């Protein structure tokens, strides 16, 4: 038994889906969060069924990927449909509902977000007009869930007859919704703020403030967690315990070094992922989740559109970039709702090239803040500059046409703490399960290679490049080798190398522009093709060494 959850974008389908199935589907307050559809099992009474969260669409005209997915699902003969209407934008959802009714499937409707209108939507009228059951709900507050569940029960028991196809033109949608609709009230304070934030003045100063504050929040909270909580715990209790235990069992030699030496497996596999990276994963994703759920991001997209036009993109492409500061994998996935393939490749390439992932950012902060706090903003500004320059070049090379922006700006909402916590937990859990283990394995391999002298041999081979051209110590070849596997490993080994300011900056630039990690290469190959992935490898490799080397060479002439 399969039930589809259908509705326009940003109407709360994913929240409803989570409430009904208990699965953690990802949601945010910007249109088009669900690019892929999600399935989950749920039950009403003792009947089990599969609920499918269909990507939100404005229309069923197959004009983009999300719409094609929705149409394909509707044609797959589901047992029933739960259609989610937007209480605030009743007319547009009504039009889509009429289109869905044309399919002649058993359908029930839910008017969601009914807390955002003052008064009650006339569900009885809609129900009478369309001949389908209609209820209201507030998914974020779990209101109306029982009614929805009982409707789903009716669907499963075959109590809802197939819908009667009828005209689906705009006039009909306007007629029904205008009679069922309650008038919108006065703007409240948060709405007025929402509107101010998207006016150039004071919107742009606010945007700069928000970005700086976000950066400060991520760095500050991350550092705080690391210094106050995690490091004291590790250095005070965990590491002495491990070292004591190991020295008790193993005598001096290679094995001891592998376990607790320079690249000691037992120390580094805990310290790097959990001590250096995890705090920033927590602080970054907390900040990003707040931005997502508040509905601020579409405003940022609108404000920045003029700038993005210069590189042939539209402001809404800022979402993959922001996600990229977390991890390039979801960032590349999120480019799926860009229709132009070349533009997808362009955005993905820019993210791979010049946006550091949160793990690498955490590593940058740990590395650079100790030498000079100014190096931290310097490297992030450099990353923005590099992204823009690279974008200009790509626009020329790939012959990108300008993207036209049509974007809904949803209302500003106060993020729901419960949902916020859930989202943060999903992302942290993802890092713990998919990030920590590969990192630990690679550190272990590196430890073995290092202690057996293999890394040193390879380092000597790369000496002309690393020492001559980049001006780094010979052992800096190690992070470049490890960086193939994880991006932050291009930075972390530098921590113990005692580098000068110039060396730190050069090494950071190379690490920033250096090849994306192996997971990203895999995603590139999967989303595009092997050739694109290979191009990415070559381009990032060449550019990183070229730019890093130039910086060192020029600086050493001047200084």
């Amino acid at each position: 038994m399969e039930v589809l959850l259908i509705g326009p974008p940003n109407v709360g389908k994913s929240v409803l889906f989570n409430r009904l199935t208990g699965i953690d589907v990802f949601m945010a307050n910007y249109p088009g969060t669900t690019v892929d559809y999600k399935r989950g099992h749920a039950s009403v009474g003792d009947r089990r069924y599969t609920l499918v969260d269909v990507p939100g669409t404005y229309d069923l005209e197959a004009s983009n990927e999300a719409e094609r997915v929705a149409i394909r699902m509707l044609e797959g003969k589901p047992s029933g449909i739960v259609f989610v209407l937007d209480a605030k934008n009743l007319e547009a959802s009504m039009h889509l509902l009429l289109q869905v009714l044309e399919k002649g499937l058993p359908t029930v409707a839910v008017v969601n977000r009914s807390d955002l209108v003052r008064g009650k939507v006339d569900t009885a009228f809609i129900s009478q007009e369309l001949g389908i059951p209609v209820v209201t709900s507030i998914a974020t507050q779990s209101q109306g869930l029982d009614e929805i569940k009982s409707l789903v029960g009716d669907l499963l028991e075959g109590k809802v007859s197939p819908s009667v196809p009828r005209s689906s033109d705009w006039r009909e949608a306007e007629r029904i919704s205008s009679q069922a609709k309650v008038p919108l009230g006065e703007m409240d304070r948060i709405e007025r703020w929402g509107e101010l934030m998207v006016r150039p003045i004071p919107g742009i100063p606010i945007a700069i403030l928000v970005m700086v504050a976000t950066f400060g929040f991520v760095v500050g909270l991350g550092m705080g967690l690391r210094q106050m909580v995690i490091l004291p715990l590790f250095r005070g209790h965990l590491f002495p315990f491990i070292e004591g235990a190991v020295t008790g069992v193993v005598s001096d030699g290679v094995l001891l070094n592998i376990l607790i030496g320079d690249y000691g497996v037992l120390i580094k596999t805990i310290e790097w992922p959990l001590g250096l990276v995890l705090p920033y994963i927590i602080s970054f994703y907390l900040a990003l989740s707040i931005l997502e759920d508040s509905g601020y991001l579409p405003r940022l997209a609108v404000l920045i559109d003029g700038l993005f036009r210069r590189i042939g993109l539209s402001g809404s492409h800022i979402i993959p970039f922001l996600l990229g500061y977390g991890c390039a994998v979801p960032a590349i996935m999120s480019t799926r709702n860009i229709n132009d393939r070349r533009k997808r490749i362009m955005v993905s390439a820019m993210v791979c090239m010049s946006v550091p992932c949160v793990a690498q950012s955490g590593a940058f902060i740990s590395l650079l803040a100790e030498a000079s706090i100014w190096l931290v903003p310097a490297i992030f500004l450099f990353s923005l500059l590099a992204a823009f320059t690279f974008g200009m070049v790509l626009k020329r090379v790939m012959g990108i046409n300008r993207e036209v922006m049509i974007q809904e700006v949803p209302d500003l909402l106060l993020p729901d703490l419960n949902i916020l916590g859930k989202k943060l937990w999903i992302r942290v859990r993802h890092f713990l399960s998919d990030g920590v283990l590969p990192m630990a394995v690679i550190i272990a391999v590196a430890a073995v290679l290092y202690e057996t002298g293999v890394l040193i041999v390879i380092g000597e081979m790369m000496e002309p490049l690393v020492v001559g051209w980049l001006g780094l110590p010979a052992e800096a070849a190690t992070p470049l080798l490890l960086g193939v596997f994880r991006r932050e490993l291009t930075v972390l080994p530098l921590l113990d190398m005692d580098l000068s300011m110039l060396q730190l900056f050069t090494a950071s630039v190379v690490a920033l522009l250096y090849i994306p990690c192996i997971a990203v290469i895999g995603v590139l190959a999967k989303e595009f093709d092997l050739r694109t992935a290979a191009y990415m490898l070559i381009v990032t490799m060449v550019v990183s060494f070229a730019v890093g080397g130039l910086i060192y060479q020029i600086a050493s002439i001047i200084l």
Partner: protein
Amino acid sequence: MGLRATTSDLSDMNDTQFNEVTQNHGSERSGLMVLMQNGYKRMEMTVSRLPLLGNLYGRIFYGPLLRREAKVAGLEEGSKVVVVGSGHLPLTGIHLAKQGMRVTCIDNDPEATSSAVRYAARRSHSGELEFMTEDGIHHDYSEAEAVWVAFNVSPKEPIVRKAVDDMETGGKVIYRNPRGLLAKVYGVVSPSEIPAGHRRIRHLVGKDSLVLVNRLECDHCLRKTLCSLEEGCEGVIAAGPEDPVLRALGIRPGKTVRSLCRQPLGGPLLACVDGRKVAIDMDIARTITLV
């Protein structure tokens, strides 16, 4: 290629007379301005004998500028236009004729007309090009679809006003205003003082082009569109692009739309329909017409 010179007595006017002619309406002109205009004229004269230089200037700088002006004015092949003050080097006329328009160039200096005829004879174009010696203030513009008033024409404002008065509804007058220091010497003709709608095109250096539209009240656009709607004002949509997303977001004929603001650097326009805020690219906003 239709080249015709309807000038009379080309040769029997000398420089002193030419100065008298240009000074007919020049009571309020400054000495510096006269000096500059005469210098400009000399330069044009020289360049008109060096076709390569004129060609280069036209191709790199002037051609694109004119194309922009013609595009904003909505002129097409076959449009009938008048160029006032075409001078010794009638680049405006030649370029417009190259775009396939039917062009009449007038200048009050017969000498300029004769060298213009000479220069134009060596240029090929697909439209019609005609030269007359006549003062812009006396010309009858009623049959023209658009009138270009050259930068050095003086006094400019009466001619601009006459052209606007003569032409039918929707007729366009294009002239250029100097910016910065130049504006101090030349003075500007403020478009808002002339009873016509206008649109400003900002060029990289020196000048702004102004396209005036006869008897239209819109300030920014030549048609009444979402783009021309003033910030904070409401309008009813007459027609728009057949885009399903736009329609779903409420941009449909018959809907009342409010323009909230525009974003910098050519970013989108923010509109509000039924309490829903939508950012719409300027290129699209221009195609959404209002009742």
